């Protein structure tokens, strides 16, 4: 033992007191019991030898060191232990990877299924629409209904429309300092009302189609339409008869108000007639009916 060199100075102290921990662990790596038992056996053998007198017998008198049945059993247990641990670890790893793989497979299968169903929804919708049109076209009543439906769709903003009309571009006065010289939400409301009054069939502001549920109002510092904030300048498109609308616009009360705003407050106001304009449909959530139901026909 390496502790032997220290024995002279610290005879009475046990080795763990004066040895560093790692040295102690290394030095006592063999169970001390083996040495104890060997010593005792040797002492007993010597004593027996002394009692019998130093006659024939093993002069070395080494104790038997061959492993017996007990060692065999313990080694067997050790083998079972090691094998079981290895098998268990392998089995667990297999389970984990199996679980992940099956989850991935399931996700892929479900998302494929979802895609297929979405495609089917789109197909069915298109089919539904074409069947509805086909059915309506078969009778004169149906044709009337179909054209009425089309008209209602245009008026309610449910469908995109194209047609001639007027384009009005309005903006704040150059170098505006007060609200008087800026386009306010109520100014836009007046403009839109004047256009409706002068025969517009569909109106959009900066690409936002107006419906009977659309609000034009200030939110913070910007005007919002259909809950979308608009930037200046404001381009108002109104589908209608381009020949009569400008004249009728001037005849309306709000139209005259706007001409005053242009003259007095110097708000930018520019009305031009267009032969073809395209207005988008309103967002779907602006078209949902919440309370109304169709009345049964008598």
């Amino acid at each position, binding site marked *: 033992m390496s502790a032997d060199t220290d024995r002279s100075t610290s005879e009475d102290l046990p080795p763990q007191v004066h040895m560093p921990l*790692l040295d102690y*662990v*290394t030095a006592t*790596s*063999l*169970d001390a*019991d*083996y*040495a104890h*038992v*060997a010593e005792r*056996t040797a002492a007993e053998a010597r004593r027996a030898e002394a009692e019998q007198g130093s006659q024939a017998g093993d002069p070395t008198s*080494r*104790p038997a*060191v*061959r*492993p*017996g049945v*007990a*060692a*065999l*059993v*313990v*080694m*067997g*247990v*050790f*083998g*079972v*232990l*090691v*094998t*079981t*641990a290895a*098998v*268990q*670890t392998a089995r667990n790893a297999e389970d984990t990877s199996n679980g992940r793989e099956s989850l991935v497979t399931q996700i892929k299968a479900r998302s494929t299924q979802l895609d297929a169903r979405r495609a089917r929804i789109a197909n069915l919708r298109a089919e539904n629409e074409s069947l509805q049109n086909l059915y309506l076209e078969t009778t004169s009543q149906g044709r009337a209904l179909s054209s009425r439906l089309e008209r209602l769709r245009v008026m309610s903003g449910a469908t995109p429309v194209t047609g001639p009309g007027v384009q009005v571009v309005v903006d704040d006065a150059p170098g505006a300092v007060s609200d008087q010289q800026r386009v306010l939400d109520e100014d836009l409301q007046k403009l839109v009302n004047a256009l409706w009054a002068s025969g517009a069939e569909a109106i959009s502001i900066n690409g936002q189609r107006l419906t009977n549920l659309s609000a034009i109002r200030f939110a913070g510092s910007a005007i919002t339409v259909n809950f979308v904030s608009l930037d200046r300048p404001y381009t108002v498109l109104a589908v209608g008869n381009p020949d009569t609308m400008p004249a009728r616009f001037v005849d309306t009360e709000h139209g005259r108000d706007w001409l005053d705003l242009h003259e007095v407050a110097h708000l930018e106001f520019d009305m031009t007639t267009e032969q073809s304009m395209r207005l988008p449909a309103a967002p779907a959530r602006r078209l949902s009916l919440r309370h109304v139901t169709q009345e049964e026909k008598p």
Partner: protein
Amino acid sequence: MIAGLGLLVGIVVGLLLQPQVPLWLEPYLPIAVVAALDAVFGALRAFLDGIFDDKVFVISFVSNVLIAALIVYLGDKLGVGGQLSTGVIVVLGIRIFSNVAAIRRHIFHA
């Protein structure tokens, strides 16, 4: 010889039976294996030193396995299972390495 035979028989039996370890015992199995490995290498070194004893081997094997598992169990209950396992592995690992070094010296006389 007889010990190697026992090991072989044990491995074969383990492979054939593939015993299912109860879930509550599973965390203690690896540490028990390391403790058993320490006892086995200690026994091999004692055998080569000429001081091997069956009784000591059996007792050291059983007590090593039980105490290692017990320490980890206690650590789990106290919430320091991971740290205690590390401590046990470090100590047993050092013992195994130094025992193997002694065995190497015996076999190769170096």
